């Protein structure tokens, strides 16, 4: 029997071939694929409690069904990722209901409390785009064929969520008061969304070698700025970034990364920090992480409890 080496698998993938079955994978490929599936699934899934929290703020009736539809879409996307993880030997029940809060892997952004309609609009209009970039980076490039097939509909839905968010932001911008609220929301959300893609790209990234994704973190961040800046500016909002004509790209006007106070939703642009400090904040998780996880576990726990009845 010939043992499949990582190099042979990389060469095969780099010729443009796709992987269909677990037997075709090396341990390394399998590990990286599972890692990416878990991050993708957790990101989709943990966006749902945030969407649910919009109803605590108050969603105008005409948008209520739309917000629910978006939450349903995200659950569906998470289901795809977790379902593929099941094929690779993971137990979804354990993943969803038995992991501790800091064992989840999703952007810190979803741990923030949402407190007004402007924050909802920005979370959709600017936040959904960040999520969509992660999906598209996989959809257009992944060498794992079952994942690529499953993402066709996901890509389309994520695009639409952005359009919905843009419409909400445009609507709010129609009044000076609304624009002021949007600016306040953007001030704390935008840097978190810049951070969303993770630390600077590594010189060597085996996920790129295996065509599990097309771009590293910096590439995605660049794409994000190319969307966020023109759109926000068109609404008269100010973002701490600008287009640098010499570098021919958008650059940030604040030290990245820098200190964030989640309680006050405030960035301190005069206080650069190290990535080690950012990782520590992420690991500790944000203000709503525990509560959101309680919501997720609540139904499952009540069903498991002896003598409990479904209400």
């Amino acid at each position, binding site marked *: 029997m010939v043992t499949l080496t990582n190099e042979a698998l990389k060469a095969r993938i780099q010729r443009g071939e796709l992987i269909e079955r677990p037997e075709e994978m090396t341990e390394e490929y399998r590990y990286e694929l599972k890692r990416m599936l878990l991050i993708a699934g957790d990101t989709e899934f943990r966006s749902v409690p945030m969407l649910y929290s919009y109803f605590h703020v108050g969603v105008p009736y005409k948008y209520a*069904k739309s917000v*629910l539809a978006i939450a349903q879409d995200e659950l569906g996307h998470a289901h795809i990722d977790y379902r593929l993880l099941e094929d690779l030997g993971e137990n979804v029940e354990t993943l969803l209901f038995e992991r501790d809060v800091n064992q989840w892997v999703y952007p810190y952004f979803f741990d923030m409390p949402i407190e007004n309609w402007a924050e909802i609009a920005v979370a959709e209009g600017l936040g959904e785009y960040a999520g969509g970039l992660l999906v598209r980076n996989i959809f257009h490039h992944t060498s794992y064929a079952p994942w690529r097939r499953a993402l066709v509909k996901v890509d389309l839905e994520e695009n639409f969520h952005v359009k919905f968010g843009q419409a909400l932001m445009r609507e709010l911008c129609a009044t000076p008061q609304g624009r002021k609220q949007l600016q306040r929301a953007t001030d704390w959300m935008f840097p978190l969304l810049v951070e969303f893609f993770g630390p600077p790209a590594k010189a060597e990234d085996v996920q790129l070698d295996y065509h599990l994704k097309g771009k590293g973190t910096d590439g995605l961040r660049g794409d994000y700025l190319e969307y966020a800046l023109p759109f926000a500016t068109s609404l008269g909002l100010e973002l701490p970034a600008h287009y640098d004509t010499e570098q021919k790209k958008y650059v940030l006007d604040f030290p990245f990364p820098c200190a964030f106070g989640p309680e006050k939703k405030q960035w301190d642009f005069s206080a650069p920090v190290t990535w080690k400090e950012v990782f520590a904040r992420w690991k500790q998780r944000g203000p709503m992480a525990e509560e959101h996880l309680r919501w997720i576990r609540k139904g499952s726990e009540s069903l498991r409890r002896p003598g409990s009845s479904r209400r």
Partner: protein
Amino acid sequence: MDPSLAHAALRALEEVMDPELGVSVVSMGLIRDLSVQDGVAEVKLTFTSMGCPWTDWIEKGIKEKLLSVEGIDQVNLEVVWDHPWSRRDLRPDARETLRKMGISV
């Protein structure tokens, strides 16, 4: 009745997409009737279900698109439920797109 305007209106509606599927409202079979007379477009529209979360969005899209057609300056939309929408209302192009997305039609 202005047949050339009605034709232009239909072409315009082919650019209004069902937000969840990226297929036009015409190909989805949501437009039940369309006529234009004296600058007024009369549209009979249905949705794939009564619980469709994007009814406002689609209606707004249709109105905006029709008003952008030269010669149309008013749009009257009527939502109809008889007969209820079913997959038989899909045009062949929509059927093909949905199948590619993994939706069984």
